[in-house]
């Protein structure tokens, strides 16, 4: 077994379960690629509510509730969200397809929705299951469309409140555009910051997005197009006209964005940064970009190119684990841990899923996760782990770190007491990195 098994398990995957490195053995690329084809999902996902059910639940309270009822509903919403991310953490801790899970999460971070907007809380995990998972190994256009039009995204980036100034509603109530979703769609989700668009393009896209809202009908919650909010007239977008077409306009715009070279560049860069290195090699970015364009945004093809790129395998401990990576790796290596416990650890480390501070999502750069106080918090977690779990640290270190375990860590663990040995294993540079 060489270091590539460790890279497959930790950099591409979510950290090895005991025995996983041996299972990967000398076939790391095959092990990863075998995870991509459709297979059955963990049945625990089905127990979580859909966004439709969550929206239906929320409606009567919003319409008629007293202040007390609203407060109680908020608390319930928060509890629902924390239960959702706890279940998610438990499933990730045991998943036999950790590369696929990381790939999906990279896309769910690309299309960030965050419970910093409270209204998103009940919809965040359903968003990932409904908009991201079905398309993460499909076509980028389908993923883009599903993410943009999901209730969680429409709520998170204010599209429900955006009204065409010349629409029926706009003329009546003097309300207007809200550019939030349009701007992030261009800057983050597709073209990227230097992708070659202007303020006028943001406004045109915002105008095309007007009307995409949520149903007010009892019994049919979810995304609908409400023509009375839509800005009429043709739009001029990225140097070409888009004819007036009501709900069809956004489809034309998203198609144009999905095949734009700037989108390919932006997507390739973000993937390379997540999977390979904080400063990804240009060759890797180019390779991913080329596959994205040539396959017309076939994301399974892009994943295959990634796995088959030598650059992604270089420098076996080059990436720092984010707190979420770390908690996940602990759960897989020593657990699986209880969901609520994992959420508690994630809170202490400042990375509860779906809580990113901005639509840009969680950073993939080590420097954003290696503040001196953050490192202390990681060691604090390691210490608590050591006190809690009864495991032979020396053997487990070989099992989980194998080819990348350093002599100094091995020796430190060997000469420490049992709980201290485990704390050192979790705190070690090899375990903090991937």
């Amino acid at each position, binding site marked *: 077994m060489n270091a590539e098994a460790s890279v497959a398990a930790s950099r591409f995957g979510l950290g090895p379960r005991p025995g996983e490195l041996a299972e990967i053995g000398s076939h790391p690329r095959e092990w990863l690629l075998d995870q991509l084809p459709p297979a059955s999902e963990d049945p625990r996902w089905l127990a979580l509510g859909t966004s439709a059910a969550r929206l239906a639940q929320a409606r009567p309270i919003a319409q008629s509730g007293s202040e007390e009822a609203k407060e109680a509903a908020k608390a319930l919403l928060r509890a629902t969200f924390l239960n959702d991310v706890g279940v998610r953490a438990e499933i990730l801790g045991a998943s036999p397809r950790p590369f696929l899970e990381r790939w999906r999460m990279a896309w769910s971070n690309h299309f960030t929705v965050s419970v910093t907007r409270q209204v998103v809380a009940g919809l965040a995990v359903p968003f990932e299951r409904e908009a991201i998972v079905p398309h993460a190994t499909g076509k980028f256009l389908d993923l883009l469309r599903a993410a943009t039009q999901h209730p969680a995204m429409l709520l998170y980036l204010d599209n429900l409140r955006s009204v065409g100034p010349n629409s029926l509603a706009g003329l009546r109530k003097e309300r207007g555009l*809200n550019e939030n979703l349009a701007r992030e769609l261009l800057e983050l989700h597709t073209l990227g910051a*230097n992708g070659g668009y202007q*303020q006028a393009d943001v406004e045109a896209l915002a105008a095309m997005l007007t009307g995409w809202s949520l149903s007010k009908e009892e019994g049919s919650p979810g995304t609908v197009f409400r023509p009375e909010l839509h800005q009429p007239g043709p739009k001029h977008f990225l140097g070409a006209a888009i004819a007036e077409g009501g709900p069809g306009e956004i489809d034309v715009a998203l198609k144009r964005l999905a095949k734009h070279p700037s989108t390919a560049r932006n997507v390739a860069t973000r993937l390379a940064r997540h999977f390979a290195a904080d400063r990804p090699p240009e060759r890797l970015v180019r390779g991913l970009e080329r596959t994205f364009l040539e396959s017309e945004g076939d994301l399974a093809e892009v994943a295959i190119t990634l796995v088959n790129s030598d650059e992604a395998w270089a420098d076996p401990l080059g990436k720092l684990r984010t707190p979420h990576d770390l908690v996940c790796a602990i759960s897989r290596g020593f657990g699986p841990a209880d969901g609520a416990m994992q959420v508690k650890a994630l809170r202490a480390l*400042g990375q509860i899923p779906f809580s990113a501070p901005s639509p840009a999502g969680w950073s993939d750069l080590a420097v*954003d996760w290696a503040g*001196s106080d*953050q490192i202390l918090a990681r060691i604090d977690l390691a210490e608590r782990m050591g006190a809690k779990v009864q495991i032979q640290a020396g053997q487990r270190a070989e099992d989980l770190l194998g080819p990348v375990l350093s002599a100094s860590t091995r020796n430190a663990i060997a000469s420490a007491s049992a709980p201290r040995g485990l704390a050192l294993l979790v705190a070690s540079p090899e375990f903090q990195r991937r």
Partner: protein
Amino acid sequence: MWTRRHLLAGLAAFPALSGAALAAGSQKRLVVVLLRGGLDGLAAVPPIGDPAFERLRGDVEGAVPLDGMFALHPALAPLAPLWSAGSLAVVHATALPYAGRSHFEAQDLLEGGGRTPREQADGWLGRAVALAGGEALAVGARVPLLLRGPVVAASLDPRRDLGLEADLETQVEALYAQDPLLGPALTQGLAMRAQVGDPEGGAGSPAGAARVAGDALGRLLATEARTRIAVLELAGWDTHTAQAAGLARQLGGLADAILALQARLGAAWSDTAVVALTEFGRRAALNGTGGTDHGVGGVALVAGGAVRGGRVIADWPGLAPAALAEGRDLAPTTDLRSLEKAICVQHLGLDPDRVDREVFPGSSAAPALPGLFG
């Protein structure tokens, strides 16, 4: 849980003093408050004397008049005594040389100090720290781009209560000895924790968190000889929707943080400047949803005993439709880098030529604002 060992280890971690300002015995302290998301300058410091203002924003109740033209948002009223004492200045209609209205690009410029996004790999304040000598601290979990540079800054999250066993720390420090990222971070973290002591409670709300952060930072800056430059990040200024209540909470938190710093710094307040900066202002008119979209010209607040305040520094462009940038935003008339350079030159005492060359390359079109400090 903090022992004498921590303190000694902490002190040993700091390199010897270097650089002109601190070697000369300067007692100056600087806190940069980063307001992430784009503070609505027209709400924070409303130009109530501008005839076009009311049409854009309606009537402002409870604002504290500063002069004939400007007022403070009611939630900033606790800062009014600083204004009266000449320890609060406002720079208005200011912006970076950028009109793209992207948070991420504008924050990159605000922190990096470059002319175009991503031009600079580290932060202007980080480069200034290297010139000034001494250490720097980020309050919060991470070190923002602003403070990254040749000297690795520490971070301290005062809301986090840790109690590590001392011998575990020693063992982990040994494991991190060869790690260029984890090693220095751990050593600094231990040092900072030793100096600030145990955190205080009351950080439940974001506004409460701002006060707790200001309080902890004040305690550290009041006693710590080497760390005189710090950054405090406050998020939550991206007020696209129904902004009245949220913005009042945010501004109240900012005022609390500044007053907590003042209280803890005691006599050192007279050598202190607290500068609140944001990446851009917001659109002059409210949007369709009671909030404001991204704009250009905005406001910066400068507080502290070292500030020659009691004035609004603005070449006011006016809010009449024809005066607005692109017909929608407050037009910037003061380059925000002029304030940032004044901080470096007048407050930190750095060599103006080196500031032009090394801290803000290519900024000669934006001379330092004169007479703001000292």
